[in-house]
């Protein structure tokens, strides 16, 4: 995100503090991304719609408290959404769901020399299943949401080096098991 875009968003936020209707612009801009992010962690359309609406409501309520910390405004929305999803699972006391698009999995596998047959997809799914939630969250933000480490650290409330370490560990195992050519920074 360029400096000009961040500046433009900040001016929308300033206007939204005085007049909440102005927040609509940011709502329209980020709704789809937040929806997909939450849907990937719930796999339930109605629940996602509820959590998404709750996310924007909390953002609107706390606009006064928002302060720029070197990451785009969207990172703040992701952070709220992530907290709402965690809160939901804490209440439910169930296993966390990660619903991944088959297309993205195939893209990942095809980055290596393996063909993306059903067997390798299944192996990757089993591997992901065994990963701790914290690692999955980092991988999701890094490879499905294309977030940089600074944003990931902000969203998950961890240090930047912690985010890098988690990604590195998860990717190391992924490379060994699947012969993938994903680089540490997420690019092939």
């Amino acid at each position, binding site marked *: 995100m360029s400096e000009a875009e961040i500046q433009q968003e900040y001016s929308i936020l300033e206007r939204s503090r005085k007049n*909440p*209707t102005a927040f*609509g612009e940011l*709502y*329209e801009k980020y*709704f*789809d991304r937040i*929806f*997909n992010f939450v*849907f990937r962690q719930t*796999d339930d*359309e109605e629940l*996602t*719609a509820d959590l*998404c*609406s709750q996310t*924007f*409501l909390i953002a*609107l*309520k706390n606009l006064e408290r928002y302060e720029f910390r070197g990451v785009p405004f969207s990172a703040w929305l992701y952070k709220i959404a992530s907290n709402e999803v965690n809160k939901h699972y804490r209440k439910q006391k169930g*296993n*966390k*769901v*990660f*619903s*991944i*698009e*088959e*297309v993205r*999995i195939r893209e990942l596998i095809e980055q290596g020399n393996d063909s993306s047959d059903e067997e390798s*997809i299944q192996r990757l*799914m*089993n591997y*992901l*299943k*065994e*990963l*701790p*939630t914290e690692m*999955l969250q980092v991988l999701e933000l890094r490879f499905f949401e294309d977030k940089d480490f600074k944003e990931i650290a902000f969203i998950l409330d961890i240090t930047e080096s912690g985010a890098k370490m988690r990604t590195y560990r998860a990717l190391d195992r992924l490379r060994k098991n699947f012969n993938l050519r994903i680089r540490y920074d997420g690019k092939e």
Partner: protein
Amino acid sequence: MGRNEIRLRRQKMSSGRIAQHRNYGQLMERHERDVKIRRITRTVIYFLIVLFLFIVFLLVKRWENNRESVEKTSVINCEIRSGCTYSGNWSRT
């Protein structure tokens, strides 16, 4: 047993389908309702604080009045029984 449940989705959610859940008007309504509730709650809390302080003030006032009347009564009793007068300190006449 896995720690997380991983599901494979055949298709990505279409933006048209996501758009069905997008409703800024409804969000604004909820926000305004929340703001109203927060304002009412704050007013009620302020009112309760003022009421509490007022009751404390009344209780202190009443306690002071009671103390004064007890003191007056004891002065009168003392004067009647032993002829004491109070003019800054007790002295027998």
